[in-house]
């Protein structure tokens, strides 16, 4: 198995990448709660959001222990530019084909990443990755089902293909250089065609939507007195 290679990256930064991806995508997925095309999808996207935010919580706990603070402070009290999330998860597109395209691309990339992390020599990280992978398997089933469902319809196919083209450079930006070829392989295998060469939209740059999202999602916390309990 390959390792996630991280030349100039600390364990904390690696954990934050994972945690921030899961938190931000969890928030994005939860935006469908109540307004998805039908009730089953309200339930599905809400459950997926809950799982992703649960993963983020566990990872933030590890970071907080390293930094001597608490998980909420790590999750909510950083300025947007300090988040390490991939731009793919930050985009706000309440459009179904783009949602399914992001869902499938992210879950496919995440599977590659979690497989590598499970082979890590960091036992704690490998253990958490293994537990996450059990839950992510159901996200992947859901994403694969929707990919196939859209590809099977005359209206769905071109819309999903167009969404995949648009998001492809973002999807490449989720993974490190050494893991990226595996993502390309899996996506091309499923679609039965070659994906274009594209410059990855990588971590470190942020979509404007991230700042708006954080502003909204930390509003209550910022307005509450320090030490408030919920």
């Amino acid at each position: 198995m390959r390792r996630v290679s991280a030349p100039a990256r600390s364990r904390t930064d690696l954990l934050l990448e994972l945690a921030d991806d899961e938190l931000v995508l969890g928030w994005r997925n939860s935006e469908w709660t109540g307004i998805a095309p039908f009730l089953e999808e309200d339930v599905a996207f809400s459950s997926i959001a809950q799982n992703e935010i649960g993963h983020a919580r566990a990872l933030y706990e590890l970071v907080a222990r390293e930094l001597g603070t608490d998980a909420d402070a790590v999750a909510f009290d950083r300025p947007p530019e300090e988040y390490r999330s991939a731009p793919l998860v930050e985009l706000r597109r309440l459009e179904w084909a783009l949602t399914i395209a992001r869902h499938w691309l992210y879950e496919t990339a995440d599977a590659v990443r979690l497989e590598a992390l499970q082979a890590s020599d960091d036992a704690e990280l490998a253990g958490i990755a293994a537990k996450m992978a059990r839950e992510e398997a159901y996200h992947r089933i859901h994403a694969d089902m929707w990919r196939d469902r859209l590809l099977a319809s005359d209206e769905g196919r071109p819309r999903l293909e167009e969404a995949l083209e648009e998001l492809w450079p973002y999807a490449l930006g989720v993974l490190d250089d050494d893991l990226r070829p595996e993502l390309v392989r899996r996506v091309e295998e499923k679609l039965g065609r070659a994906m274009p060469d594209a410059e990855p939209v990588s971590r470190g740059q942020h979509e404007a939507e991230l700042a708006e999202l954080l502003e909204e999602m930390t509003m209550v916390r910022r307005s509450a007195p320090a030490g408030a309990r919920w």
Partner: protein
Amino acid sequence: MSAADNACVESTQAGLADEVWRALAEIPDPEIPVISIVDLGVVKDVRIEDGTVLVEFTPTFMGCPALESMKAQMEDAIRALGAEPEVVVVLDDSWSTDRISPAGREKLRAAGFAPPAPRSAGTPTLIQLERGPFRCPWCGSTDTRLDNVFGPTPCRSLRYCNACRQPFEQFKTI
């Protein structure tokens, strides 16, 4: 301490650990109260260390909102025995639906939840969920279909029984 004293301490500790297990077995799962947290298999270990009751607790799903409530109930139950609790949350792959006890599986079935398939059946796939022989907890038929991979909580899927025409909840294999 003499050997006799040591033996006495050990037996008292074993007695306390047994009492703790019995007390924890009285705590219902907050979301599916027909089974206890011990039946659910989330209590991995109970040890007495320096007078403290150390409980290793392995949550089911990482985003389980009942986690804090389960932890608080365990701490209360241990304090009620006059001991000091320390509940450690273990986040690795050691909890599995295979850890649900046989008694727990029966209680689930009786309450209309189909118990999970064993982990050895392999990583779940859509084809397996759609075509696998999942048994209706109401009538026992395997003529059932997948309605939704997700359900009222992350640990359950929704299925429908074509034989008795009842929906039911299927525990996911984790």
